[in-house]
């Protein structure tokens, strides 16, 4: 008997210990001042106590270690979809044009460009003295080779860059092996390359400009048109480019090692070695806090931000992500949801603020137009806010002819108002959304049923339009026009809502023709206003990212539309 009591006590103590580990030193209140950087919506909390910098980090004088995830051995934009591998690609390759922190085009390999008045001819001039990392010069022939490769009839078997939408002349013939030259890509001289388009396309400047350039000599050696495998193998195992750093080694699942390219055209990197070290999202905070990594990031949630701040020796940056926002998709051909009034009722009747705050607290905001807050095209005037209003929602549903029955559920023509919500799992937003939506919809007299399944199944069903309502993260690029075209244009591939509005289509077409960004902004704003009224999707939130950079590193800063990896050559270690 006695030993049973002792064991029981032991058990109780152990259980308590486990429970208490959940509490324990939370990130302390950092009273460090928040600085708003002038470039964009970036907020910086400077390191409060650099003396806390661990010796591991301090002793590392010639190496920067960057925490990364999702590395599968394809660190080039040609074959990867992983954001982390894209970061590595940015250190290995260069592009004709780049973007600044706000998404505006700036010089890259090209130090000038011209667009013909009819919008059909784009000419880029390559800077003098640009070399690949082995000292050989980068010329217009390399640019032409890159585009020939991208148009190879079998590149798209595995490749991820799709230039078919750029509208370059001759693409269709070359990529279907009907022609043996890519007519729209013209080498004028060693430094000048010209692209001819079928029709004016304002997105082409950056679409073409932001293509990483491959060395014809290196990748073209064993390459024959129609068989991109030799190039693919080189890119995925021994990538070579003109970029800030040179590829040294890849340890699968562990790290990617790079060394400075002394002949980099913008200036040799000040830090000799770069290591992208794989760590899991659950250990990002710990690795940064122990000085094992120098740079890493998380989706901005209070626990991560406070952990970063708590370290004391990290400069902590938060800003709205340019690459995605969250929105709720409606199948506008569904019998229940085809009625705009019902969609509006849902917009008013769903407490989006509560959902967003419960996941991201102060690090996200509710949005009402399908564009990132970080984009130059972002706008918030002349649109409806759809602030949570139960009464308004109920009134709209009454107007739509859905009458509340005795059981509190609305019905029309004998059919009950029931909505199935397709939710991917695991997903922290859906976890917060489902209970809140259930309660909100109950108040509206709608029977809300959540169908949870893993991501691909949801994505497949949504793509096949076999759904009513779903939550998705909408991936965005630096170009809002093509984002709109891919998503809301009639018949667009990502138009999961089966939405069609000729006014939006014509706005999109007009935006493609308009090369002046200010004028384009106004055209896009028109489209956003229509979408805000039609509600094929209900925008949910714009969230933030948090980056932690070890304070002994200076010279680089993250921004929504310019990854800090583009500027690592400027980084210095104190």
């Amino acid at each position: 008997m006695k030993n049973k009591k002792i064991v029981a006590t032991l058990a109780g103590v152990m259980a308590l210990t486990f429970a208490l580990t959940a509490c324990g030193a939370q990130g302390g209140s950092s009273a460090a001042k928040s600085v708003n950087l002038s470039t964009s919506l970036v907020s910086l909390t400077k390191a409060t106590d650099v003396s806390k910098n661990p010796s591991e980090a301090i002793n590392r004088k010639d190496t920067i270690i960057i925490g990364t995830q999702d590395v599968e051995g394809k660190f080039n934009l040609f074959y990867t979809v992983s954001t982390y591998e894209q970061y590595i690609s940015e250190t290995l390759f260069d592009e004709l044009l780049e973007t600044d922190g706000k998404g505006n085009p700036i010089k890259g390999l090209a130090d000038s460009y011209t667009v013909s008045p009819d919008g059909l001819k784009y000419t880029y001039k390559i800077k003098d003295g640009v070399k690949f990392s082995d000292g050989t010069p980068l010329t217009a022939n390399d640019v032409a080779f890159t585009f020939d490769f991208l148009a190879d009839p079998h590149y798209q078997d595995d490749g991820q860059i799709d230039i078919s939408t750029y509208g370059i002349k001759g693409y269709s013939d070359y990529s279907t092996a009907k022609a043996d030259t890519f007519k729209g890509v013209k080498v004028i001289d060693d430094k000048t390359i010209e692209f001819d388009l079928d029709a004016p396309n304002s997105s082409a400047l950056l679409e073409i400009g932001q293509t990483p350039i491959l060395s014809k000599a290196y990748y073209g050696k064993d390459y024959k048109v129609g068989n991109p495998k030799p190039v693919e193998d080189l890119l995925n195992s021994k990538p070579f480019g003109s970029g800030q750093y040179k590829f040294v080694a890849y340890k699968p699942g562990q790290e990617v090692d790079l060394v400075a390219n002394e002949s980099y055209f913008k200036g040799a990197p000040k830090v000799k070695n770069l290591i992208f070290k794989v760590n899991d999202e659950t250990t990002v905070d710990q690795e940064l806090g122990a000085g094992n990594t120098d740079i890493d990031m998380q989706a901005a949630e209070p626990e991560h931000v406070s952990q970063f701040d708590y370290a004391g020796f990290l400069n902590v940056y938060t800003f709205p992500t340019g690459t995605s926002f969250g929105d709720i998709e409606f199948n506008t051909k569904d019998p229940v949801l085809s009625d705009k009034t019902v969609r509006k009722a849902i917009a008013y009747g769903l407490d989006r603020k509560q959902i967003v705050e419960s996941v991201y607290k102060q690090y996200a905001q509710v949005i009402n137009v399908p564009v990132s807050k970080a984009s130059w095209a972002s706008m918030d005037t002349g649109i409806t806010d759809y602030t949570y209003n139960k009464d308004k929602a109920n009134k709209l549903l009454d107007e739509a002819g859905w009458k509340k029955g005795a059981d509190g559920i609305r019905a029309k023509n004998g059919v009950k108002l029931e909505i199935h919500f397709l939710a991917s799992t695991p997903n922290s937003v859906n976890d917060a959304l489902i209970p809140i939506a259930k309660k909100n919809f109950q108040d509206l007299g709608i029977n809300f049923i959540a169908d949870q399944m893993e991501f691909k199944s949801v994505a497949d069903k949504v793509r096949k339009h076999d759904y009513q309502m779903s939550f998705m993260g909408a991936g965005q690029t630096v170009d809002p026009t093509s984002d709109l075209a891919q998503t809301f244009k009639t018949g667009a591939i990502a138009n999961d809502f089966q939405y069609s509005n000729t006014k939006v289509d014509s706005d999109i077409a007009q935006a493609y023709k308009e090369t002046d960004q200010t004028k384009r902004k106004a055209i896009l704003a028109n489209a956003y206003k229509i979408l805000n009224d039609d509600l094929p999707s209900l925008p949910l939130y714009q969230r933030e990212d948090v980056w932690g950079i070890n304070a002994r590193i200076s010279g680089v800063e993250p921004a929504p539309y310019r990854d800090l990896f583009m500027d690592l050559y400027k980084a210095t270690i104190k």
Partner: protein
Amino acid sequence: MRQYILRRLLQMIPILIGTSILIFMIFNLAPGDFVSGGGGHRTAAMEAQIRHAKHLDEPEIIQYARWASQAIRGNLGDSFNYNKPVVTVINTYIWNSFILALSAFIVSLLIAIPMGVVSAVKQHSFTDSAFNLIALVGISVPTFFISLLFIKWFAVDLKLFPISGMTEAGSTTTGLARVVEVAYHMFLPFLVLTISQLAYTMKFVKASMLEVIKQDYIRTARAKGLKEKVVIYKHALRNAMIPVITLIGLSIPMLFTGAMITEKIFSWPGIGYITYTAVFVRDYPLLMGDTMLVAVLTLIGNLMADVSYALVDPRIRLK
């Protein structure tokens, strides 16, 4: 015996064929394929091209036949995701899982067997209750939690071990220094896996031991005047080990499947997380290759367990 083994090996062939068909069907039942839901801004034409290149637009029977005819010749195809041969991808990661799993397996056995024996022999004592408690904790607390807890205690707070990874970033060690470095990095995930396996094995050994101790021949041995130590360790333990041998044989495939959660948290580059992601992205060639490997190992493990059982227990006659 030889005939038995031969017959079992021949039986494996239809079993493997049937397994491969079943697995292929199950994977195809899930909605979506490698192409769906991915790559944001792809056109429909591009998606069609990718599907065509990967034969995803063919009827499933044809896809299976294609896979099977290659597999028989030892070619497991190329992974959709890695664009490399499946064999290469598996080979890159599986040995990392193996060394981790094997170390944990051996040590957990070495600890669990004595624990189970003592627990059985000294049933209802304080030691027994304490061991039971440890087992309960090992079984109930999720590996996810234990992993993060150990990271916090031993890596972050006490700084005794690394937080994650198999080697130090930028490490250039070779030979013995490399072995030491890997072992050092392996210690925490090894500890987590040992503790969770230990719990099950200990209970298993204890149950088996209790069964044996109740037998009449043990009572006879005691009655003969043999020392208790001889009774337990020479007679009882040997017979109690028979089911444990079966357990070992059946655990062999587990050494190659990777501990998905533990590997993920410790960023241990093993096959577990690779397979997990492969399910989510519908990388069929990699999944088929990996599952068939486990199927083969399971059949071999079963065979080894049955054969060793027969070798150890004279009452068994294999037909």
